[in-house]
């Protein structure tokens, strides 16, 4: 099975739109994973039926047993995250601020503090027309986590069977969730857009992807909105030896398609043509790779 992840340094570049298009263009049996766990949007493009829902447990959280607490205030004094609150003559843990370090359990003389599991999101496994989809949702206020990404990938690998292609919608940024996404992939498609910040973030994400020995491809979305910056991106890619496999024009049909919850490739429009061309280039390169 070939494994490709669609990623981007900057948010809002059209990563999910392109992932959706790839899913409709690819031949053969697919599985897909939405690893953009902070803002999982891939499910909005495909009719899906959730088959299983599991709780996701991230970092543990401290808890104070009020019956054992002797009100010494050690936990509040030593907590560096301001997660212990004193109100109504009692100490409480603010679960949003608690980073799960367990220092309070070290300094409590009364054994009143303990670390507890907490649910910080959900992992779903769904069925779509184009194949099984693993996706997840992190609760608002929970830290981003490579672990949740790994859990989503684990679900999808369990069900991959003999399918031909795994398509992954990755998270923006270059942190832990991205690294967890790229691990184990054959190739990454980096989606960028012609703006100064787009070019800047492309450079950062390429640096990270290089560490994983994956094939790197670039797609420039809305390339004709600012052609001078698009030309700088092309130059950067040429210097780095990275193939630009897609140049997708700005096209109002893209937003129309998203509103209709349909991949844009279902329409006859310039963006869809460009995406088809991109997929052909990408498919032949993946085949060779």
């Amino acid at each position, binding site marked *: 099975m070939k494994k490709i992840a669609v990623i981007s340094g*900057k*948010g*809002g*570049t059209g990563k*999910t739109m392109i992932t959706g298009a790839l899913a409709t263009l690819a031949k053969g049996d697919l599985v897909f994973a939405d690893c953009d766990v*902070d*803002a999982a*949007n891939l499910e*909005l493009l495909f009719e899906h039926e959730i088959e299983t829902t599991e709780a996701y447990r991230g*970092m*543990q959280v401290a808890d104070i047993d009020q019956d054992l607490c002797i009100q010494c205030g050690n936990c509040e004094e*030593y907590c*560096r*995250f301001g997660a212990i609150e004193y109100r109504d003559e009692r100490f409480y843990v603010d679960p*949003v601020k608690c*980073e*799960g*370090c*367990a*220092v309070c359990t*070290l*300094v409590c003389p009364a054994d009143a503090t303990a670390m507890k599991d907490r649910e910080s999101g959900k992992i779903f496994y769904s069925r779509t027309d184009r194949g099984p989809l693993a996706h997840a949702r*992190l609760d*608002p*206020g*929970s*830290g*981003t986590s490579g672990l949740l990404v790994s859990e989503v990938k684990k679900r999808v690998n369990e069900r991959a069977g003999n399918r031909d292609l795994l398509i992954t919608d990755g998270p*923006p*940024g270059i*942190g*832990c969730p991205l690294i967890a996404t790229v691990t184990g992939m054959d190739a990454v498609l980096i989606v960028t857009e*012609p*703006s*100064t*910040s787009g070019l800047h*973030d492309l450079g*950062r994400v390429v640096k990270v992807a290089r560490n994983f020995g994956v094939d790197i491809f670039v797609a420039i979305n809305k390339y004709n*909105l*600012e052609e001078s*910056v698009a030309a700088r991106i092309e130059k950067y890619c040429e210097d780095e030896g990275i193939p630009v496999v897609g140049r997708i024009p700005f096209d*109002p049909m893209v*937003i129309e398609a*998203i*509103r209709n*919850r349909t991949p844009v490739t279902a329409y006859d429009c310039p963006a869809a043509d460009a995406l088809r061309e991109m997929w052909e280039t990408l498919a032949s390169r993946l085949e060779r790779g």
Partner: protein
Amino acid sequence: MKIVVASGKGGTGKSTFSANFAWSISRGRDVVLVDCDVEEPNLHLFFSAGKSESGVTMPIPVFDTGKCDFCGKCGEFCRYGAIAVLPEKIMFFDDLCHSCGGCRIICPKEAISETERVIGKVWDAPVDEHLRLITGVLDEGEPNGIPVIKAAKEAAEGNDLVIYDASPGTACPVIETIEGSDYVVLVTESTPFGLHDLRLAAEVVRKLCIPAGVVINRSDGEDDETEAFCREAGLDIHMKIPFDREIARLQSRGDLFSVAMPEWQERFFELFEDICIRTGGAP
């Protein structure tokens, strides 16, 4: 008064809004604008001004291998995997450390002390006599931006009107930015993706009990679904910024569209006055 500009989704034009909003208000009164999007701060790209810089640090452990007997208790305690104990060597991973101080407490040999490590900086730039821009910058490769956000917020303390540009999403850094503010402006775009993430952001401000309103960016007039959600959630839509190639072009070159299009300067100021009325503050 403290106003936060936030968005559930990246790339909605939140920074463009913040920069134009703050600049327009500053034509009528003093404003401090704080860039709390410390992973990708870019408000400074809109303004040219000389700046002063101060470092942001966090404490990390230092191991005295003369006192250490390599018992391994610190590594065992650390829930972030920041310490590996070899038979005659300690390895410390500073990018995994959360500065909780636990290793120092648990060490039976008192072999651990602390030092400060630089993880980012705060820039302070007087744009002109009415607008000051404070920017939090997290160094590349650093995973935890919270201390930098705290430092940037502190630098703006004591001013009558502060506008904070939060990072996208609904994770810890956004909560850190929103906490203690008087009003939140949620910037969204009218696609199902934008709406999906607006729902999450609206949930956060509702939980934190902070009044909020919505700005729809790049609107093409088909905003029915977003409008329906806002009605249901009790969020007023303050403003729609249309999709406009001229605005897009000005923005990708790092220009403020409210400078080139003065009618927008008035609209942004009216929005500010509206927020003042809602929060009971004086403009």
